[in-house]
C-alpha cells in the first residue's frame, strides 16, 4: 500500500490534477514514438466519453434537479400541470426542520445505521480471524454460507427473515418459546429484526475482504507474535488491525454508506415504515413523502439532507486516505 513509487505520489493533495496534466510531465517511457499517437491527447477523453455522458445525464443532472425541486412548491397539482411551479426558497426546509417527525426519523436513521455498522464490522472481523484459525473444510463451509447470504437479494432476504420470525408460522418464536410475540409490532423489536437481516447480508463483504487482507500479512510476523505467546485479541489489536487499516477504512466507509441508505429491508419487513411510521428511516421517509403523499419537494429536501450527510462522510474518508499518502 505504501510502497508505491509512482511519480504522482509526490503531488500534494491541494494540487490535485494540476501538476500531472502538462504534456511535458508525461513519462517518456510511454513510447510515443513507437506508435501512431498523433492525437494521444484526446484518446483518454474518447475512452471516457461514454462513462461521462451516462454519469452526466443520469447522476449529475438528477442531483441538480433534486436540489432544484427542493426549492420549489412541487405537489401533484404541479406535476399534472394544473398549477404553475413556484419558487419557495428555503420554505420546504423550514417545514421539514420544524417537523418533529423529521428529527425523530433522522435520529432513528443515525442510531440504526450506527448499530448496523458496528455489529457488521465486529462480526465480519471476528469471523475473518476465525477463518484463519480453522482448516480447509470448516473454512469452505463458512465461506459458502456467507457467500449465500451475501448473494441473497435484499428483498428475498427480507421476506425470509420476516417469515422466520413470523408469530404464527415462524420457527424462531417456537424455538425461543415466545408464543405469538409479534416482532414487527413494537418499534425496537422491529428495528432489531431489520438489523439482524442487514447484519446477515452485509457481514460477508467485511469478512471476505478482511480475510483477504489478513492473508496478505507476512506469516513470519504473526508466527513470531504467536511464539511470543500473544493472545489472539492482542495479535489482532497490535498487528492485524494496524496493518489492515487501509482495508478497514474501506469496509467501514462502505458499511456506513450502505447502512445509512437501507431501504428495501425497512420497506418490506416493516411494511413501508412500521406502524404509524415508527420504523421510518430517511430513505423510506423521503419515498413516502414523495410517492405516497405526492409532496415531491419535501421528499427532495429530505434527499438533499441525505446527500449532504453522505458527502460529509465521503470527505472524511478522502482525508483519511490522503493522510496515508495513498496514490489515486
Amino acid at each position, binding site marked *: 500500500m505504501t510502497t508505491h513509487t509512482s511519480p504522482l505520489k509526490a503531488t500534494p493533495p491541494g494540487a490535485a490534477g494540476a501538476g500531472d496534466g502538462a504534456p511535458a510531465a508525461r513519462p517518456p*517511457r510511454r*513510447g510515443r514514438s513507437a506508435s501512431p499517437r498523433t492525437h494521444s491527447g484526446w484518446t483518454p477523453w474518447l475512452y471516457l466519453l461514454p462513462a461521462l455522458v451516462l454519469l452526466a445525464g443520469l*447522476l449529475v443532472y438528477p442531483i441538480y434537479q433534486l436540489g432544484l425541486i427542493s426549492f420549489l412548491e412541487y405537489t401533484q397539482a404541479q406535476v399534472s400541470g394544473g398549477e404553475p411551479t413556484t419558487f419557495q426558497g428555503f420554505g420546504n426546509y423550514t417545514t421539514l426542520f420544524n417537523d418533529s417527525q423529521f428529527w425523530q426519523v433522522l435520529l432513528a436513521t443515525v442510531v440504526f445505521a450506527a448499530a448496523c455498522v458496528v455489529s457488521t464490522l465486529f462480526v465480519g472481523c471476528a469471523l475473518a480471524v476465525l477463518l484463519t484459525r480453522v*482448516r480447509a473444510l*470448516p473454512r469452505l463451509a463458512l465461506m459458502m454460507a456467507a457467500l449465500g447470504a451475501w448473494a441473497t437479494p435484499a428483498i428475498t432476504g427480507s421476506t425470509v427473515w420476516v417469515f422466520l420470525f413470523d408469530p404464527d408460522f415462524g420457527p424462531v418464536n417456537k424455538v425461543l418459546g415466545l408464543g405469538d410475540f409479534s416482532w414487527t409490532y413494537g418499534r425496537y423489536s422491529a428495528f432489531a429484526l431489520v438489523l439482524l437481516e442487514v447484519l446477515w447480508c452485509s457481514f460477508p463483504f467485511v469478512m471476505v*475482504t478482511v480475510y483477504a*487482507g489478513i492473508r496478505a500479512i507476512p506469516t513470519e510476523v504473526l508466527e513470531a507474535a*504467536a511464539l511470543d505467546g500473544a493472545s489472539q485479541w492482542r495479535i489482532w489489536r497490535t498487528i492485524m488491525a494496524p496493518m489492515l487499516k*487501509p482495508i478497514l477504512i474501506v469496509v467501514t466507509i462502505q458499511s456506513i454508506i450502505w447502512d445509512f441508505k437501507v431501504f428495501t429491508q425497512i420497506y418490506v419487513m416493516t411494511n413501508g415504515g412500521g406502524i404509524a411510521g415508527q420504523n421510518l428511516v430517511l430513505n423510506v421517509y423521503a419515498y413516502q413523502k414523495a410517492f405516497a403523499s405526492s409532496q415531491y419537494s419535501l421528499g427532495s429536501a429530505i434527499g438533499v439532507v441525505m*446527500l449532504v450527510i453522505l458527502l460529509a462522510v465521503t470527505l472524511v474518508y478522502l482525508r483519511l486516505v490522503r493522510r496515508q499518502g495513498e496514490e489515486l
Partner: protein
Amino acid sequence: MRALLRVKRPGRLAAEAAALLIAVAVAFPLYWMVLSAFKPAGEIQSTDARPWTLAPSLDSFRRVFEQQDFGRYFLNSLLVAGTVVILSALVAFLAATAVTRFRFKFRTTLLIMFLVAQMVPVEALTIPLFFLMRDFGQLNTLGSLILPHLAFSLPFAIWMLRGFVKAVPEALEEAAYIDGASRTRFLWQILFPLVFPGLVATSVFSFITTWNDFLFAKSFIISDTSQSTLPMALLVFFKPDENDWGGIMAGSTVMTIPVLVFFVLVQRRLVSGLGGAVKD
C-alpha cells in the same frame, strides 16, 4: 497462515466447531426458504414449524408461475441485469483504461469524482429520475431500469477495474506498439482479455444491484405490469388478510437461485478481485 494453524489442538477444534455452527446458522434462512417453498400448503400454515418435510410438493412454484406471469417478470429481470452487466463492463473498461494508462489534465479530479459518485444515495435520486423518465417517455419501460443502473454501476466498476488494468505491465503495451499494433488493437485484443477476470468480479456487483433493485422497479414501472421485474411480482403474494407464505418463499427461491449460481461461479475471482481493488 500455516503458523496460525499450528495453534493448540483443543483451541483449533473449538474454533472449527464454532465455524461450522456459524455456517449452519448463516445458511439456515436460505434452507428455510427453499424448504418452505417445497412444503405443501397444509404444513406451511401449520403452527408447529418443522424443519423438514416428508411430502415435498411443487404446488407453490406452480401457483407462482401460473398466477402471476412470473416467467415474464423473470425474463424482464434477466434482460435488465444482463444488459447492465455487459454495457457497464465495456464502458467501465474504457474509462478505467483512460484513467490508469494515460496522464492527462483533471485525471486526479476525475478519480475523486468517481469516488464521490459512489457515495451518492441513489435512492434519493428516485424523484428527479422519475420526472426525467417521464419527460423522455421511458416510464413503464425496461429502459427506465437499465439506464439508471448502468450509470450508477459505473463509478464503482471503474474504481475496481483500475487495479486490474494497472496490473498489466506497460512493457507489454510498448512491445505491442513496436510490433505495429494499433491502439485499438492493443485495447481489445491484448488488454481486454488480460483484464477479463477483473471484469467478471466487477460484474458481480452490477448484476446484483440491478437484479435486486426494488425501488426503481417500484417507482418507474407503475402501470404496465408486463414490464415488471421480479421484486414486484413477489410483493403480490403479500396480502393484507393473510400472506401466501408458500408463494412468497417459492418466488424468493426462484429469484435467489440465479444470483447464487452467478456468485458460486465467480466466487474465487471475486475474493481475489476484491483484494486487488481494496489493496490496489
